């Protein structure tokens, strides 16, 4: 028997701050080469898709191959509009966070195609169980930005009564589930919701999102297990944006296999998609939704992208990765690519684009004006502290009534004493 000592392997990204950007080992297959099977295909026949990369937009901005969803120019322009709005919104909110108007913010820069195209490819009544980086879903579903801003500001009009960290939206009317701070928990919930829909003979399906890093949680495994066993009508998305705060995707297993490949062991079909390609994202989502809606069960979609933003307003990525990575991401960025496509097919121009950006900036500012009129974090201080005792249970229980009284008495006394 061999007796050479063992050693521990610790994965490490190829480059760190100070190194030159190096994406040379990222394989980018050409657009259009992946075949599109019927959406009722046997999962066992789909195993190779876990290692492919579905791309529709080629380098010249043309839509090619079987996965081209053949969307109308109007639809494409709508998608572009939503993406631009999402980005403008993100930029503005992050600035406001920097100015102290709120405590926290998370941008989805570079990942806009995901939320936007997926919301558009799904039915409006389908139920979404997002992580915190799919604000594009809400934008595409037409949720007024002022609602989101009110939540971000914890102001008087905040539909979550000042309870939640900024961006932890909950929008029942837009089929958008309450975002949890605990990573991954929404994934089996999405499956449970889908099971309930199937149980009820409904036609609505569910969709869930987690990040590459979050796939390591038990909830990811629960979701795939239950989705497979009960053939739940759900689209399970892994947004592989290469980073989990400071930790590269190799630390979640991405060195050894794609995240799409996780599906294989559960007998689920996987699609691996260029996440910065609006058309590819749309097409893959449409395929998975069709499969689910026809009772053929769940699909795992890996959305291959890059987190161009810092993890959150609390994060400075310059501490752990080369600053130039985002710009050099081999799959580009989604707005630019869709814009190029629309121009290539003669349905858009630089001028119209500039006008769109201006329009969206103005839209953000206008909504911001309204939101600000209801206050920003702590300004004025929120004025219904008693509400913190509501919604723990349907009825405020006795002990919380007492605690509420105590708290209000305390405030009153403090005010009187001038403390």
């Amino acid at each position: 028997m061999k007796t050479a000592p063992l050693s521990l392997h610790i994965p490490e990204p190829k480059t760190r701050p100070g190194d030159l950007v190096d994406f040379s080992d990222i394989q980018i297959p050409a657009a259009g080469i992946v075949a599109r099977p019927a959406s009722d295909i046997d999962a066992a026949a789909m195993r190779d898709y876990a290692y492919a990369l579905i791309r529709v937009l080629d380098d010249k901005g043309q839509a090619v191959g079987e996965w081209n969803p053949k969307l109308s120019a109007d639809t494409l322009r709508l998608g572009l509009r939503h993406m631009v709005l999402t980005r403008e919104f993100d930029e503005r909110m992050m600035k406001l966070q920097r100015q102290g108007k709120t405590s926290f913010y998370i941008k989805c820069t570079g990942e806009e195609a995901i939320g936007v195209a997926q919301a558009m490819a799904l039915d409006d009544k389908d139920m979404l169980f997002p992580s915190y980086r799919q604000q594009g879903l809400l934008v595409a579903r037409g949720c007024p930005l002022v609602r989101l801003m009110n939540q971000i500001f914890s102001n008087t009009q905040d539909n979550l009564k000042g309870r939640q960290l900024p961006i932890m939206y909950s929008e029942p009317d837009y089929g958008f589930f309450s975002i949890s701070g605990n990573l991954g928990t929404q994934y089996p919930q999405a499956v449970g919701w889908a099971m309930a829909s199937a149980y009820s003979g409904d036609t609505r399906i569910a969709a869930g999102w987690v990040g590459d890093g979050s796939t390591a949680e038990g909830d990811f495994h629960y979701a795939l297990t239950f989705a497979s066993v009960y053939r739940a009508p759900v689209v399970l998305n892994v947004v592989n944006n290469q980073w989990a705060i400071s930790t590269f995707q190799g630390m979640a297993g991405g060195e050894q296999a794609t995240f799409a490949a996780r599906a294989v062991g559960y007998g689920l079909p996987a699609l691996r998609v260029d996440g910065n390609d609006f058309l590819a994202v749309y097409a893959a989502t449409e395929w998975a939704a069709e499969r689910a809606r026809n009772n053929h069960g769940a699909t795992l979609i890996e959305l291959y992208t890059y987190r161009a933003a810092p993890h959150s307003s609390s994060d400075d990525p310059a501490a752990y990765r080369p600053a130039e990575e985002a710009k050099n991401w081999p799959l580009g960025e989604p707005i630019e690519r869709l814009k190029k496509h629309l121009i290539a097919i003669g349905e858009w121009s630089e001028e119209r684009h500039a006008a769109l950006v201006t329009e969206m900036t103005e839209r953000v500012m206008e909504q911001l004006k309204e939101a600000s009129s209801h206050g920003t974090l702590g300004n004025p201080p929120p004025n219904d502290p008693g509400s913190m005792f509501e919604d723990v249970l349907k009825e405020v229980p006795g002990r919380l009534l007492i605690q509420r009284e105590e708290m209000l008495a305390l405030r009153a006394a403090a005010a009187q004493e001038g403390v």
Partner: protein
Amino acid sequence: MARMNMIQAINSAMDIAMERDPNVLVFGEDVGYFGGVFRATAGLQKKYGKRRCFDAPISEGGIVGAAVGMGVYGLRPVVEIQFSDYIYPAFDQLVSEAARLRYRSAGGFTAPLTVRTPVGGGIFGGQTHSQSPEAIFTHVCGLTSIMPSNPYDAKGLLLSAIEDDDPVIFFEPKRIYNGPFDGHHDRPLTPWTKHDLGEVPEEYYKIELGKAKIVRPGEKVTVICYGTMVHVCLAAAEESGIDAEVIDLRSLLPLDLDCLVTSVKKTGRCVIVHEATKTCGYGAELVSLIQEHCFYHLEAPIERVTGWDTPYPHAYEWDYFPGPYRVSRAIKKVMEE
């Protein structure tokens, strides 16, 4: 009226809930065709089809996670965790999700699920089939925690739990599934059929969550307990020869504090009994509340009689289990001071 043991009463509650509400479904490990390792779901799959009563993967986190999602959809899932010792993998979904969903969504989403799970020892189950983890749930706001002590209550409380619009943990003291075990493990067990509370209506009825019951009125000392310990305390009260008032909490959270305070103000003495380990057990909260509300009425320190602060040891379970002798000594002790 029928004669039912606790399992039958619990089964009857689920049966009726499923009958009345098509949104009630039952799932968990081995609960489908087989009807559960304690047989609590026996016959439900046959009656309602496997769509409404089915097995689950061995994945407590997945079971509760899926149930949360179903609750969000609008169903009322009733899930079984085979032993409460195995509820920990579901802890995050219960605490971070089920318990806080209504709050964090300001009422926009809710998770009206019921988790049934057998608790307690005295069945030679060793450390992983004997635990009583109620106190880690009663610390979590947003959860309701129930523990019945007899078939009649079990059925009425379980129906209330299933209809409750928030998540409920329904702890079933497995040692009394068959009869009101009083801790005298060397004596034969009286079956529920020979006990008044084994008389259970076959039809629908509910017992309000949050109401304790005085199961033995008395003047000299208040004994507070729940689950299996109710029968142990009744035996102990009898054996002590002291005029003890025994209160069965039935509901841990919400707690019927008024009932306790009234009793202790009357008796001036209090013994609290549970099977769970002592430190930071539910008894600690009871002591705190009683000393807060009855301070000037207390004539002696409140005594806690509980499982020791060790895991449940297989061969020594009768030295671990807080039996009637130990409880009666505690009753006598508080009388002496």
